[in-house]
């Protein structure tokens, strides 16, 4: 097993282990903190896939932003420390059916897809300049629409603020 594989399994264990804690922890605050390591592990996997810009974005937006949002969301919850999360299994039959369907779909897609494997992996080094070029030429319209989407979100945030002041 070479170093690459060791690092991959390290990040995979970090991601899956933390994700397990997120799902099974009875304390919602622990769940939120475990999410930090799950998201960080995914960023490490992106680095291993040579998607360095995606990894940085993952760190900036998910670890730095979304996670803070989730934590504040948890802190806003009433009686966050007293609530006992129910993690026992209910609705066994529908759950198994849906799980089987979902994982069957994923595995099916995984096997039936003709994965593109670059013959020259060094090609994808320095992804940020290429993303910048594509974003401002080929994908210009989605790029500008993204700003409108962000504008809508900003206006929505301002609406929350106004409601807070009234109450």
């Amino acid at each position, binding site marked *: 097993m070479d170093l690459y594989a060791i690092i991959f399994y390290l990040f995979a264990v970090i991601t899956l282990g933390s994700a397990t804690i997120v799902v099974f922890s009875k304390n919602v605050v622990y769940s939120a903190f475990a999410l930090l390591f799950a998201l960080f592990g995914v960023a490490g996997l992106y680095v291993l896939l040579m998607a360095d810009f995606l990894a940085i974005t993952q760190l900036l937006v998910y670890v730095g932003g979304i996670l803070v949002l989730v934590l504040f969301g948890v802190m806003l919850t009433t009686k966050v420390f007293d609530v006992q999360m129910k993690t026992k299994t209910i609705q066994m039959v529908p759950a198994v059916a849906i799980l089987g369907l979902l994982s069957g779909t994923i595995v099916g897609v995984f096997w039936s897809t003709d994965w593109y494997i670059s013959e020259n992996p060094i090609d994808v080094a320095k992804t940020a300049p290429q993303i*910048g070029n594509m974003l401002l030429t080929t994908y210009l319209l989605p790029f500008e629409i993204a700003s409108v989407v*962000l504008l809508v979100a900003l206006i929505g945030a301002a609406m*929350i603020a106004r409601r807070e002041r009234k109450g």
Partner: protein
Amino acid sequence: MLDNYIPIFLMIAVGVLFGIIMVKLNEWLGPKRPSEEKLTTYESGMEPVRTARERFSVKFYLVAVLFILFDIEVVFLYPWAVSFKSLGWLGFVTMTVFVVILFLGFVYVWRKGALEWD
């Protein structure tokens, strides 16, 4: 290409190990003569007044939402800045449109008073 990340991995490894070793060394080597005052929660020198387990104001949440939105804007700026020279004036104009649209939102949020604390 992954060679570039070796310093980062080393940095993380050293950081984690240093944190663990220092705390554990303290625990093993330090003398333990606890008193009631020493065992109170450390609050940067302040007397702890009440439980920390209380609900936060929704104002924090709003700040976090605004932070993420402008965070994403910065993420979009970064690839543009890296390939700024090859994109030329066209890239400059399109990015200006992008930033102006977001600036409108910023002005709206400011005028609505969402940036004020109370």
